[in-house]
């Protein structure tokens, strides 16, 4: 009979870290101050494993750390050249599948996608740029939706449902036809009950959802990733505050 080891530890890149029952690998590593690259995970929001950047090798098998439960005795590889190369390729795909023109984006310097690409040493998109044509929704007086930059992480969808108690967003379609939609009769943000103080309006890791009239508030040198690196644990509060700079 196989028995579970008594100690509740996982081993990640030769570092042993504790976990409690119910934690995912991501939860346990974040609590221990170990960084696994991620874009679609946010503490306190149900993980969905969309971006796959947090893919780690668990006992030799690739798994998304954000959705995989921690189990005693797991041997996990995380910060390896092979995994980081795969993460870079995924990040390159996120760039070329949208229109991520950093110099013209007001999220630049505050953008976790951009910071992730810096972290992974991405110098170019590698794959043929798709330059998709996607609808911009500027109908709302205080919130802007630019689907060009949406990476379909679904953080806004989950934040709206789980934290704001609303149901403003959804992902419609599949594969290359997937898109972020607004759950209103005409599909416009203006008819939704979203407000700038909602987490859904501020959680976007790219410049797809922006609070209007706050662009470029912080000059270059004062933006989040001028002062922080994406691999610092616990940046989420700074992201949220940075999404509306008059709060800070």
């Amino acid at each position, binding site marked *: 009979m196989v028995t579970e080891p008594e100690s509740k530890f996982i081993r990640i890149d030769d570092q042993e870290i504790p976990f409690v029952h119910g934690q995912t690998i991501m939860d346990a590593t974040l609590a221990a101050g170990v960084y696994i690259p991620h874009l679609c995970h946010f503490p306190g929001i149900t993980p969905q494993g969309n971006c796959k950047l947090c893919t780690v090798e668990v006992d030799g098998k690739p798994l998304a750390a954000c959705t995989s439960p921690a189990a005693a005795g797991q041997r996990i590889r995380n910060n390896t050249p092979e995994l980081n190369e795969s993460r870079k390729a995924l990040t390159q795909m996120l760039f070329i599948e949208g229109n991520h023109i950093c110099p013209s984006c007001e999220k630049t310097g505050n953008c976790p996608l951009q910071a992730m690409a810096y972290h992974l040493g991405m*110098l170019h998109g590698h794959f043929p740029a798709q330059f998709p*044509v996607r609808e911009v929704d500027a109908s709302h007086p205080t919130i802007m939706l630019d689907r060009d930059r949406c990476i379909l992480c679904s953080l806004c969808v989950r934040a709206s449902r789980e934290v704001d108690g609303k149901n403003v967003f959804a992902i419609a379609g599949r594969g290359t036809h997937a898109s972020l939609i607004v759950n209103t009769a005409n599909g416009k943000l203006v008819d939704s009950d979203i407000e700038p103080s909602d987490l859904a309006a501020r959680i976007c890791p790219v410049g797809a959802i922006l609070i209007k009239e706050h662009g470029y508030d912080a000059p270059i040198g004062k933006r989040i990733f001028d002062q922080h690196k994406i691999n610092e644990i616990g940046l989420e509060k700074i992201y949220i505050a940075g999404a509306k700079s008059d709060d800070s």
Partner: protein
Amino acid sequence: MTHKPKLKLATTSLAGCFGCHMSFLDMDERIVELLEHIEFDRSPFTDIKQLDHCDIGLIEGGVCNAENVHVLRTYRANCRILVAVGACAINGGVPALRNHFSLKECLEEAYVKTPDMINPHIPDDPELPLLLDKVYPVHEVVKIDYFLPGCPPSADTFYRFLSELIEGKEPQIGKVELRYD
């Protein structure tokens, strides 16, 4: 110390704003130091029109028309090391914002719908290079050896990159220098 022959450097701007060239000039007096090891061939800095065989070619800007394709292929054929410099060369940059629209829409907006135009029509002089349907990153047209991201890459980035090439090292873009804006 043995006297090494100078490296030949050529630069060009395709669909760009010349900001990368301006940033290159921001090296200030360090350019004089570099000139002990490199000499310019075809470049907006020299106004030489024909490209000779070169060691390094720096390409600023994306590919937006038939002439850009021709120039880029000429650089590839004549440069031992070809470098994509700046956001426009690497991913189309700001000029690629026109990729949201059809070429017809762009031309009509500029030459037909603009208010107060005299004789509004889309220019059709045969000497004008034909526009491509989209603005493309340079690596989608020719093989590129190195990428210097940034809008523009800083003078320090240019200096370090060229210094390392001069020293015969494999150039590295440090994490501090890696910026897309």
